[in-house]
């Protein structure tokens, strides 16, 4: 079973931290289909975060089709996320892009800043879409 670590200073919404850590555990193979996620009570007891936040994170994971809530039993993993990102053409495209950025004279820090800012912008746009 996974144990969530909540970073109160990260600036990332708490429920997103749970979503991200679950996905990370799936990618690394720490969680496999059939595994049970800790109950909201278990998470809350260990982390002192709001139980509704845990439930919100699990709903988000369920919406993405990664987990399934079974009444009275708990929340269970239904699929893996293994290897998705590694082999896709996306990775090749990104590698091309990094090469182009290097050629244009960008340092590693510049590239990271640029990537992060675009990613943030896109993520925010997504969330506006969700909220509506």
């Amino acid at each position, binding site marked *: 079973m996974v144990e969530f670590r*909540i970073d*109160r200073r990260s*600036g990332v*919404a*708490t429920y997103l931290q749970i979503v991200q850590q679950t996905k990370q555990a799936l990618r690394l193979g720490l969680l496999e289909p059939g595994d049970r996620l800790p109950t*909201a*009570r278990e998470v*809350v*007891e*260990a*982390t*002192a*975060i*709001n*139980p*509704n*936040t*845990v439930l919100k994170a699990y709903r988000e994971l369920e919406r993405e089709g990664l987990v399934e809530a079974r009444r009275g039993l708990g929340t269970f993993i239904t699929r893996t996320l293994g290897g998705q990102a590694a082999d896709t053409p996306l990775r090749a495209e990104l590698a091309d892009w990094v090469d182009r950025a290097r050629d244009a004279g960008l340092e590693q820090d510049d590239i990271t800043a640029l990537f992060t*800012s675009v990613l*943030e*912008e896109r993520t*925010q*746009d997504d*969330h*506006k879409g969700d*909220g509506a």
Partner: protein
Amino acid sequence: MTATAIEATGLGLAYGKRGRRALHDCSFRIPAGRVCALAGPNGAGKSTLLALAAGLLRPTEGALRVLGGTPSDARARSAYVAQDKPLYPQLTVRETLRVGRELNPGRWDATAAERIVEEGGGLDPRARIRSLSGGQRTRVALALALGKRPGLMLLDEPMADLDPLARHRLMAALMTEAADHGTTIVISSHILSELETTCDYVLLVDGGRVRLAGETEDLIAAHTLLTGPVADLPGHTVVESRTTGRQLTALVRGSRAIGGGWRTARPSLEELLMAHLRSPDAPPLLTPGAEVAA
């Protein structure tokens, strides 16, 4: 609409003959099952609001409904912990828990109360209250509140006397209570950072008035932190703006994208509350769920 834990309509309280107002014209709603941060600076009216909800004070204007009735009707189903944690100094810890049992016949959960007292150790049940440290008194006071198995907990600065470990442990106990029983918890604090991960609802009071009320997520989503060149921000309600050299940082209402080299970011709860406290003229904002049904 979900059940309502607390609903205030034009609520106000004036003290003394000169009528100094501790609260004025407060209207808001806290749905049941929420963990609500009651934020605001010292003297904002947080304690007054909690004492009104606990039925210890009577409003001088407006009305307050708690768990669907008057604060008095809700007395058995709500628990209140005052800021100074009043307890009988001559009693022992065990006798204090017995007070809880005797004064709450038919509701008292001795196991829940004893768990809080025993957790973390170092608290002799035979110790007299007057010999306890501030943090230990807080634990006993919270044990009395939890032993009552309340539907609503009203906690006035409950964590002020606690070290970080005890704070985490008690917060976990409160959150577990909320997870197990759907308890509504209202916690007042002027330490905003400690509330960020625990509270899904916020009520910001300042100068006796409600400034912000609603779901934490919704309130944050309703604001955007902008950074960019100094310029006017037409069409936006600016909560706060600061200029540093050629750069302007502003917290604005709304989440519309804005062009022209602006960087946008999601404010943290602390940033949101601080910006409102620094700008007393910013208009109040209540999310639809926090508005009192007409």
